[in-house]
């Protein structure tokens, strides 16, 4: 078995941020060390107020080749956007 520490992906929610953003990754033996390490590396300059770490092997990602079929259905539904509907000027701001 490999003796390499597992890889963790790090997500930080910024001071005024609404959501956690992926900021990078690191190796650590367990989640506790991963959070400590993420605190030291990724929040040294007041970058955030909340840290999530998740082991990289638990993440599934979409593949670039599927880009077409994956997003095509939404492209054909223009009526999902508010700009699709013409509202007469007389009605005012809506």
């Amino acid at each position, binding site marked *: 078995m490999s003796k390499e*520490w597992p*890889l963790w992906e790090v997500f930080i929610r910024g001071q005024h941020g609404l959501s956690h953003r992926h900021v*990078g990754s*690191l*190796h650590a033996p*367990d989640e506790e060390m991963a959070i400590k390490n993420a605190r030291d590396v990724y929040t*040294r300059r007041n970058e955030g107020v909340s840290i999530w770490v998740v082991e990289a092997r638990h993440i599934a*990602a979409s593949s*670039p080749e599927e880009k077409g079929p994956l997003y095509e259905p939404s492209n054909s539904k223009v009526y999902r956007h508010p700009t699709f509907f013409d509202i007469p000027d007389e009605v005012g701001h809506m």
Partner: protein
Amino acid sequence: MYAQLVKTAGAGVKTREEMSDEERNFQDRVDRDEKIEPKDWMPDDYRATLIRQIGQHAHSEIVGQLPEGNWITRAPTLERKAILLAKVQDEAGHGLYLYCAAETLGVTRDELTEELLSGRMKYSSIFNYPTLNWADIGAVGWLVDGAAIMNQVPLQRTSYGPYSRAMIRICKEESFHQRQGYDIMMKMAEGNEAQRRMAQDALNRFWYPSLMMFGPSDKDSVHSAQSLAWKIKIDTNDELRQRFVDQTVPQAKYLGLTIPDENLKWNEERGAHDFSEPDWTEFFNVIKGKGPCNVDRMEDRVSAWEDGEWVRDGLLAHAQKKAARKHAAE
């Protein structure tokens, strides 16, 4: 540059006719300045070159902690010591970002470490020079980090997404390093005669090694054409070196220090400084492991890795035990 003399894999730049459909599609994306991401198709040589370049860059951050770490216990004031500690911590973080970027290309960090420790992968030649007086810490921040920034700012636009994003993060922090270095140099240059002499001595010793950081002259850098075509590199070695000299000369003048180059002068016609090339024989010797500190640096890294093995294993064993216990309780 922290990744000097990276040989681009492959036989040279292919014409469009020689490319396969996949390669043409890839080159088109690069030409449109689209970022290449880990799951995208990429030529094997692109992948290999990037692993080498990012890996070398990461190793440089790690080995680069040693010459500066040399002065932590001897920093002349508590404030300077705290600043130096913060800086060396940053370098560790930069190494980490870069190893992670390299790992998205399908190597593991332990594999890269193994390549470094066995001497199969390089790190920047600059870290094979010793730090002999306190002003050297100033010169390293000002010149070495200055040269690194000169190289890394354009790399923020490099074609491989994870590398480009690592560079954006790193550049923000590097400018703190360069400023703190210059701040040390200002203090030393305004100080007493002995301090001024130390500052001049540091500049004398670090000037040419800093120029070497950009890698060999373009006429000898046979591998850059492909790296430029793939936008792994954005500027040539000589372009970056020239930019560095033009930026640094007025900074030295402000300090009242002399750059150790008799041929250095402003060339009105070119709108740039003429200057002497560094000693390329020395450069190739350092790269081959025959610089002043190559042996010491590698010994330090190897013993840290070997002596630390039981700690790494212990932490892993503890994590596994904890996970098993949690699993049993569920």
